């Protein structure tokens, strides 16, 4: 695939993330922090999130399975996930975390279970999309990485 086609595909892909509500303005803020001194900053932050978040999701799942229910701990775990997700602009994950927290507040275990399944699906989808996006970015090379872009 030639450079201009790749560039178009990257632009279209990123636009779709925003149009479909996977990412919000915070992702643009991450891009603003990327420069020649840290040309892979956005990918590094996203990789860190994608590395850390499965652990949190697993801890949430384990805690849901415990008896008696520990809604305080569940709320604390989801709070961490919400904060991390919002830091990269993962708006769907952030919103589902808010739903989960509301279920914790209501001590609604079944609601928490349903919300967790949604969070896991959203996480898997986001992971797949962002990994594909950065794979394409790597194909166009360092020049693309170092340039702040809102395209």
């Amino acid at each position, binding site marked *: 695939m030639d450079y201009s086609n790749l560039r178009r595909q990257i632009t279209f892909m990123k636009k779709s993330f925003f149009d479909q509500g996977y990412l919000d303005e915070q992702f643009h*803020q991450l891009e603003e922090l990327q420069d020649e001194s840290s040309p892979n900053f956005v990918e590094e*932050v996203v990789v*860190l999130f994608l590395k*850390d978040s499965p652990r949190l999701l697993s801890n949430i799942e384990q805690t849901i399975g415990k008896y008696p229910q520990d809604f305080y701990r569940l709320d604390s775990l989801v709070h961490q996930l919400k*904060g991390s997700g919002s*830091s990269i602009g993962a708006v769907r994950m952030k919103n589902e975390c808010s739903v989960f927290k509301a279920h914790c507040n209501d001590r609604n275990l079944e609601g928490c279970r349903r919300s967790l399944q949604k969070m896991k699906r959203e996480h898997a989808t986001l992971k797949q999309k962002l990994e594909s996006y950065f794979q394409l970015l790597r194909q166009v090379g360092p020049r693309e990485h170092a340039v702040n872009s809102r395209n």
Partner: protein
Amino acid sequence: MASSLKALLVEDTAVQRMVLSALLRKQFHCEITMAENGKEAVDMFLEGNTFDIVFCDKDMPIMTGPEAVGKIRAMGATDVKIVGVSTDFEAMEAFMSAGADVFVPKPIRLDVVEPMIQEVINKKNN
């Protein structure tokens, strides 16, 4: 904006530390020190470290943000600007009661933090 402000970042989550430290360093040229919980932050003040501004998360292991803020103020560190941060707006009351100067919701936005940094710079230069 070049500042050379000394900023303490109190945050237990690695992703959030990474993003906020980059924002403060790249946009405002702050000298960043990090603490992973409230106790580490308090210990830094006890060791005699001084900071121009503190960004403090609320929910952290060992010691929460508001508790750390209360202890920092109680040891006489009244000049340092303390910014409480959280994804939950309910955290504002806890931070302000503990002695924080301001509360900002997460994720921290550049247009929100810029006037705070400028205020601290102006105060330091006067």
